[in-house]
């Protein structure tokens, strides 16, 4: 009974290996191609939905089909101007980018170790709640000035990191010592985390004077100072996120610890032979992943929402897309997070000015993940158009 599970891990890791170890050029090509295909499929979806939707001035008439409301090119153009067109929206884009950097890095850190952490969302939600509660308490005891702000903000981030890390450690322990598949456990822990947080806030620690499930609003001393007017974005948080990305890159490329973390998840047996405590390293990787998810939650409370409120956006799931798009490379996460940050911000403009539902971004997110999951698809296309190389034959990919 136990032997099977062991071999499943090896096999699952082989699949992850392919994703992680593809050459950089290949990875970037696949990411860009996936992005392109997702945009094309999204454009078709938008175009077709235009014929179902009602609107005052349609942009096209097709005989037999009727009036089409949405012009895909206009949608994507609006998305671009809506995310970079003014200082305010640039602020919003960078705000989303900052959060996505943390959730994307959270997923990437686990992926690097051959572990698929779908639980970033739950780690973020609990980290955010812990941060909100602690800074609400702490703010009363610190001076209302820059020193007080430094104390509160750094404490808030640390608390979020600890709680997120704890919640990430649980699936790590389950994986290392009970061989429970981390994909299943992290999904389940998301629901548990969100349920517990909701219940705590609704019944015990929330602002009981309102009907909405939320905590009280944190005071100014617990808010990241806004950099751009009209947006809550703070460049301090962004710089922090970039430093963390660089730090993780160095950890994995320049240190022995990083090397051990990576091999422990992917080649547990080999790592053990090499005298590494692979089980402990699996727990460490998942904890580190949770820490980053928790920090995302802390930043969310102290820079975006200024309180914990039920229905935190699915930044953890966006993080999966960011990490996969980046080839799980901590440096690649930076442009990927910027891309998703602009998609999320731009979708607001698309919704407001063109009436195309903002959920479009969620569809695009799913499509990007789907296309990246099938590199073979692009190899087949490449082969058909004569760009194939020798590796296609050994992969046995035969166009059907």
């Amino acid at each position, binding site marked *: *009974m*136990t032997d*099977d*599970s062991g*071999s*499943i891990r090896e*096999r*699952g890791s082989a*699949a992850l290996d392919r994703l992680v170890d593809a050459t950089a050029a290949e990875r970037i090509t696949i990411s860009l191609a996936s992005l392109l295909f997702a945009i094309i499929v999204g454009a078709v*979806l938008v175009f077709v*939905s235009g014929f*179902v*939707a009602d609107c005052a001035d349609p942009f096209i008439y097709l005989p037999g089909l009727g009036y089409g409301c949405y012009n895909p090119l206009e949608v994507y153009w609006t998305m671009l101007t809506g995310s970079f067109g003014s200082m305010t929206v640039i602020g919003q884009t960078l705000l989303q980018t900052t959060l996505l950097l943390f959730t994307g890095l959270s997923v990437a850190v686990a992926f690097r170790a051959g572990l*698929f952490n*779908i639980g970033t969302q739950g780690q973020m939600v609990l980290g955010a709640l812990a941060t909100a509660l602690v800074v609400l308490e702490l703010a009363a005891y610190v001076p209302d000035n820059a020193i007080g702000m430094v104390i509160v903000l750094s404490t808030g981030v640390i608390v979020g990191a600890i709680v997120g890390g704890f919640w990430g450690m649980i699936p790590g322990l*389950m994986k290392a010592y*009970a*061989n*429970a*598949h981390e*994909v*299943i*456990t992290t*999904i*389940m*822990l998301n*629901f*548990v985390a969100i*349920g*517990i947080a*909701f*219940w705590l806030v*609704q*019944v015990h620690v929330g602002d009981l004077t309102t009907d909405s499930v939320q905590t009280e609003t944190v005071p100014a001393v617990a808010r990241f100072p806004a950099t751009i007017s009209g947006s809550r974005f703070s460049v301090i948080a962004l710089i922090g996120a970039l430093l963390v990305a660089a730090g993780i890159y160095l950890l994995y490329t320049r240190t022995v610890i990083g090397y051990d973390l990576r091999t422990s998840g992917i080649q547990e047996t080999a790592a053990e032979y090499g005298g590494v405590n692979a089980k402990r390293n699996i727990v460490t990787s998942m904890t580190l992943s949770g820490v980053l998810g928790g920090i995302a939650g802390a930043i969310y409370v102290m820079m975006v929402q200024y309180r914990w409120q039920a*229905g935190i956006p699915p930044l953890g*799931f966006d993080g*999966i*897309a960011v990490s*996969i798009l980046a080839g799980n490379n901590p440096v690649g996460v930076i442009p990927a997070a910027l891309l998703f940050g602009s998609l999320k911000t731009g979708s607001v403009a698309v919704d407001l000015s063109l009436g195309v*539902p903002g*959920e*479009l*971004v*969620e*569809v*695009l*997110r*799913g*499509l990007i*993940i*789907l296309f990246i*999951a*099938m590199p*073979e*698809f692009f190899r*087949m296309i490449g082969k058909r158009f004569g760009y194939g190389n020798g590796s296609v034959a050994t*992969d*046995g*990919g035969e166009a*059907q």
Partner: protein
Amino acid sequence: MNAPSLTRRQGLVIGVILFGLLTLGLIIDGGRQLISDVTGVLSVSYLTSAIRLTVPIAFAAMGGIFAEKTGVINIGLEGLLIIGAFGAVASLYALSATPIGANIWLAFVLAILASTFVALLFAIVCIEFKADQIIAGLAVWLIALGFAPFASIIIWSRTSSPSVGTFSTVSIPGLAALPSIGPLFEATPPVFLLALAVPFSWYLLNRTTFGMWIEASGEDPKSLDTAGVDVRKVRYAGVLLSGVYCGIGGAGLALNTGQFVGSGDTMIDGRGWIGLTAYLIGNYNPVGAFLASFLFAGLDALQLQLQQIAGYDVSSTLVEIIPYVAVLVVLTFVGRTRMPSAAGEHYESDE
């Protein structure tokens, strides 16, 4: 052969659930009074509502078994349920504008086709393009989670549909007239479909050649190939079956309430994931998966009834996380679920 571990698992699940209920009893005021009210709530009407809530979970669970037994792990069950539910309501809404009229059975079939079509795409992605099944399954869920509210806004200008009509209750002549247990035989068609699907699925898996192929495709595809059976086709069949089952489950849920709700996690609200936990706890046995689904749905119904009848302020949130906690406990302490040994692997025929 799975019998001993099945019983142990289910024993444990019951233990976890009882523990959860006990905790609830301590958390809310008047816990002792609650215990007696719980027994008062357990009636035939409770059972019927529990069975109704079982429909989407159990269908998703059985669908998941078929896919995974052939070797394709389908964690997109939640997404397929969403497509089924949305497809049913959207079809019924669209049909009412055509000369055909709002034919609920036609809408039901269209919803199943929609879900099966998405499952087919998933199968192509996994089998032809050798995608990572976990990531592709996740993508199916995320796409459905975005697409259903997107399309709802396009059609109805908001994330939820208006009421479109529901399945009417069917009663089995004779049995429905029985004293006290009669109401159990008055239900909507999806409930009866579930009653048929559980033994059918068990029979299909355990007593037919096709069932043997499914087993072999997930356990030892090489031998199956050697025996002259096309592993690819068997895997396609398994994934398509999961699409059909999820279509029935999702459409059954939506056509019971007569409305599609697309806000938040949509009206499916994690039932696909609970289905996944149900078949893990039921150890890939359709009957076990059904029992686990019924237990989880029964808990949900219990919480609803307690609030309605006894006027308790039971935290629905805490009741809702019990299935997830249960599966975590099972995976961690009872031992590994025995996955088909070739699940998640691509199979390359030598020919």
